[in-house]
């Protein structure tokens, strides 16, 4: 689900939060920011229907324009140049690089090790990496990326020491 965000002048995400109070705090803190896009722009800094940003902006547009050589956006059926302007928010100059964030939604697996496919969907999970590897072996799963899903309530590690 798209997260409400506050965008900076270059289209960068400076705040995002599902909680309106937290978002409002961010708005106060960054009162000069240009836009609050509740549910319109997601945390990728891209259009609302883009749930991930792995390929955001690498195309000069959102992930919906999957092919660099495509001349028409697959979503809007508009010329790419138009699509790029529609999907980029925050008033950045033409040709500028918007923020690139791969936003993962792993709350349902908090504290577990997970394997994600190329669409960032969780295809397996387990309490330990060893168990996860056994699960992947058991199902013959390949082409995955492994990481641990954080608990959003955990303290945020500062550095790695």
């Amino acid at each position, binding site marked *: 689900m798209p997260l409400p965000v*506050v965008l900076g002048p*270059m289209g*960068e*995400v*400076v*705040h*995002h*939060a*599902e*909680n309106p109070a*937290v*978002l409002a*705090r*961010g708005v106060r*803190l960054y009162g000069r920011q240009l836009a609050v896009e509740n549910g319109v722009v997601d*945390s990728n800094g891209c259009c609302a229907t883009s749930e991930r*940003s*792995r*390929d*955001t*902006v*690498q195309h000069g547009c959102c992930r919906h324009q*999957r092919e660099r050589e495509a001349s028409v956006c697959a979503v809007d059926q508009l010329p790419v140049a138009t699509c790029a302007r529609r999907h980029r928010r925050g008033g950045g100059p033409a040709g500028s*690089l*918007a*923020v*690139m*964030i*791969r*936003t*993962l*939604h*792993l*709350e349902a697996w908090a504290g577990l090790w997970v*394997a994600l496919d*190329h669409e960032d969907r969780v295809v397996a999970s387990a309490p330990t*990496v*060893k168990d996860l*590897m056994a699960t*992947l072996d058991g199902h013959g*799963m*390949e*082409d*995955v*990326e*492994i*990481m*641990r*899903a*954080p608990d*959003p*309530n*955990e*303290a*945020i*590690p500062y*550095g*790695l*020491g």
Partner: protein
Amino acid sequence: MADAWLYNYTDFGEGRDQSPRPVLRATVPVSAPGSRRSFSAIIDTGGPINLVSNAFIETATAAVPTDERLILRLGGRRFDAPVVTIAFALHPPVPSPAAPRLWTGLAAVIDPWPHEGTAVIFGQTGFLDQFTVTFGPQGFTVEDGSTFAARFSGAPGS
């Protein structure tokens, strides 16, 4: 890797709704050569050497022990970590069709693994001495190690 590989920062959801700002990590997918299961590896510019977990070592068929050990502190704990020579495969950003970049570097093996977000950490020795990494506000790039010298040799102050 003739071209720069442009990666997104990753928001794993750490502290989501505690802080109005996303917690962004510079991570790249890495595996043992030939493996189709990659680990999300954090690039830690303050780290002296690559760190890998036993879970990663178990996927690597070509980890060669050295006679070196390092005393390291990680996650508030002290580790007497053996150092191995290991082959890595750096995967390009999705959806690039480029082949993974292979290299061999040193890594310290940490067991038990204390860090909660990943099983591989890239530091100075073994990664930053192999690649030119450029961090920007919007994303970061990984290029050949020779790129830095080619780009900046002869520059004022060099």
